[in-house]
């Protein structure tokens, strides 16, 4: 038993309310002032299959799900079989006795009980909430209040159904897992919600997205908030249209963002390059899932790093960064919006399914978000591509009496097409000045998170893998120094110098070790070993702490 963590796992078919039950559990815990990490594992289908939600909670900060659960609720046989090894010491399994007999655990006639109500199978999730409520010692009143708040449809039936399940579990299991209260109630956010809010805080005006897991929920969240925030949120015919529309919008001064996953981003790269030569401020959220090609749509990986770093044909400045926590996703999205406008170049906020779609209790200081600022043209004759000391030309937007020409061909300072050797070289040099300007700007900004430890070995991770590492170290009571580069292009080599010849371990989710390559090639780091996972699943803190321990030996 992991003494300070309680984990609830619920599994069943898609359409039975598995994910909802997980999120209600997360709310129950956060209502108690506890912190929560929820990971949903689901297949690429609408009905059937096997889905599960795993919610780990603690009275301290928690940054990962644990795959050893104290309470496992299985709606069907497949869930029982799948999670047979996911039970913590002293944990209990509650299964649907209408689906199977003779298995270890406590059988509850979930199906026959649900059959009594018109919603039938849709109520299984409510049953799971009742089981959780009973085992963690909530009163029926407390449970009913949660159900009322979280399941607005069919409240009376739900409460009646939950009551009978609660009583069935009571015998022997009531208050089996008493949970202490935490310090304060916190909001629960997914990574994608945090990214969306960060973009809104940074000044977002338009969002374009073509549905693709795991980025779609940004499109959905912003579409829902469009009226509230005065946004245009559009789902066009393809990712190619997405990025070209965003470039059109940015031309008018609109802060534009697009979001997708690897395959969609592959289609966007032509437009990404267009943003490079036209010096269009454009932010793209790239949420990685296992590739190549269609890969595994609803799972996680970090194998698009090299692709992101070199996306688009031709030489131009690309800014790539990756948030390590759900909170950081908020600040970093706003900061990236600011950076792409400051330096008039495309940027990528690189993340993964594990961060995009997992939920956490968060402490966010919303006022700490940057606001997208830009260099503006004041008066006089306008040249869209005026050569300047830092390579950044002042911006002007239509309507204006001055002519603003934005050009995909190599162009002169006015934006008129050129094939002149001197002008071609000069414009390359102009755009290239922005590389140094950005480096100079970032030098005194926070570009890396370092937590100093006592062990002489250092651990490097980026993106959501950082969350897994933090939890693994907490679980294993290990204290190496952990380093999470927030920026991947430019890689903050000035911050990494001190680790160059030390003992370094990298943890990442890519079979070829793309992040390791980046660190060794760009920062000259010596890497002793890379701990990799590439089965689509995020690291489990218990397993990962074992792996880290072995390397630290």
């Amino acid at each position: 038993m992991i003494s300070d963590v309680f984990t609830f796992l619920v599994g069943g078919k898609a359409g039975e309310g598995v994910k909802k039950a997980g999120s209600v559990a997360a709310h129950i815990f956060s209502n108690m002032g506890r912190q929560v990490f929820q990971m949903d594992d689901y297949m690429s289908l609408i009905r059937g299959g096997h889905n599960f939600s795993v919610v780990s909670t603690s009275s301290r900060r928690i940054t990962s799900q644990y795959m050893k659960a104290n309470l496992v609720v299985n709606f069907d046989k497949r869930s029982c079989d799948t999670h047979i090894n996911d039970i913590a010491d002293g944990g209990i399994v509650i299964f649907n006795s209408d689906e199977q007999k003779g298995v270890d655990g406590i059988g509850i006639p979930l199906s026959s009980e649900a059959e009594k109500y018109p919603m039938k199978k849709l109520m299984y999730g409510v049953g799971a909430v009742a089981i959780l409520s009973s085992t963690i010692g909530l009163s029926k009143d407390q449970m009913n209040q949660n159900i009322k708040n979280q399941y607005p449809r069919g409240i009376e039936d739900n409460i009646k159904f939950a009551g009978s399940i609660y009583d069935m579990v009571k015998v022997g299991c009531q208050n089996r897992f008493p949970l202490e209260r935490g310090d304060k109630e916190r909001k629960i956010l997914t990574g994608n919600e945090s990214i969306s809010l960060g973009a809104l805080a940074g000044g977002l005006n338009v969002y374009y997205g073509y549905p693709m897991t795991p980025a779609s929920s940004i499109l959905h969240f912003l579409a829902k908030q469009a009226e509230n925030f005065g946004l245009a949120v559009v789902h066009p015919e393809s990712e190619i249209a997405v990025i070209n529309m965003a470039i059109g919008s940015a031309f008018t001064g609109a802060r534009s963002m697009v979001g997708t996953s690897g395959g969609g981003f592959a289609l966007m790269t032509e437009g990404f390059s267009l943003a490079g030569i036209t010096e269009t401020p454009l932010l793209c959220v790239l949420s990685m899932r296992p590739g190549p090609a269609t890969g595994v749509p609803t799972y996680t990986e970090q194998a698009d790093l090299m692709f992101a770093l070199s996306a688009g044909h031709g030489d131009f400045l690309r800014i790539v960064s990756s948030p390590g926590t759900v909170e950081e996703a908020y600040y970093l999205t706003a900061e990236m919006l600011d950076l792409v406008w400051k330096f008039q170049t495309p940027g990528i906020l690189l993340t993964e399914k594990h961060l995009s779609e997992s939920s956490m209790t968060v402490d966010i200081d919303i006022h700490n978000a940057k606001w997208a600022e830009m260099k503006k043209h004041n008066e006089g004759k306008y040249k869209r591509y005026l050569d300047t000391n830092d390579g950044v030309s002042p911006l002007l937007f239509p309507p204006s009496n001055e002519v603003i020409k934005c050009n995909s061909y190599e162009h002169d300072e006015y934006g008129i097409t050129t094939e002149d050797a001197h002008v071609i070289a000069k414009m390359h040099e102009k755009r290239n000045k922005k590389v140094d300007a950005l480096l100079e700007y970032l030098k005194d900004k926070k570009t890396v998170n370092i937590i100093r430890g006592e062990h002489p070995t250092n651990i490097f991770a980026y993106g959501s893998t950082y969350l897994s590492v933090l939890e693994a170290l907490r679980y294993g009571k290990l204290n190496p120094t952990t380093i999470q580069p927030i920026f991947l292009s430019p890689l903050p080599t000035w911050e990494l110098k001190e680790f160059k010849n030390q003992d370094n371990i990298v943890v990442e989710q890519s079979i070829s070790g793309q992040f390791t390559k980046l660190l060794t090639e760009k920062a000259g780091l010596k890497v002793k070993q890379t701990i990799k996972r590439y089965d689509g699943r995020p690291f489990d803190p218990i397993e990962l702490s074992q792996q880290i321990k072995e390397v630290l030996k």
Partner: protein
Amino acid sequence: MGFETNAEITWCPGCGNFGIRTAFQNAVLELEKKGVKREDIIISSGIGCHAKIFDYINLSGIYGLHGRNSSNAEGVKIANPDLKVITFSGDGNGLGEGLAHTIYAAKRNQDITLVLHNNNVYALTTGQFSSLTPPGWRGPSTPRGSFEIPFNAISLMIEVGATFVARSYAGDIKHLTETLIKAVEHKGFSFIEVLQPAMPYHKWEEYKDKIENLNEEPKSKEESFKIAHNAHRFTIGIFHQEIREVYHKSLYGDLNPVKNSISRKIRLEKINEILKY
């Protein structure tokens, strides 16, 4: 203020594109007389001979990628619906590489104008057959003659939802100017196919004798479609006009996302509201 830029004009002498440029400039002058402000006019183009018009007319806009110009135009309009957006396209650019974008701009009734320079050929890339080339074209990619059937651009655009569909001719500046004015004034997606010879590949004579005016005024979409379908491909005139809610109005009503951008302070208050426990 003139329309000239410092760009060197590299269209072939006698190219139909000169006629399109002249007619467009005339149309802008006429529209200005009618109260349209020149600074509100934004142009975009794809890549090909048609697209060079971007460099040769001193108006603001985006010289985009091959086939993607109507998406740029849509993005401009969505962010700032006060702007009048005209996008220029070639037959290969707009109905080959950019077919999906052209069709979807019409489907959405995006309030922009698309001018399709139809020279029946990929001119700039040395004469390959295009989406509108009749079978039998001996180009470098089809040395034994092309054998695909061409699209009928007019009936296609009526079918997919364009609310103003016309054909004009680069050799009839008056007709083209008038059609351009009507297209820009039309509220909704307006499409003009402009017949234009490309000098190395065609002769003006091939067009002159065949051009004929559309004498009918179709009463319904079905009738428009039928006429467009059966008409001679040198028939010029307005084939279809209808009124349908424009895209940006359906999307956000009277909002202008750029002009009405919400302040940081109000945004943070709204975010605070969302994050309230």
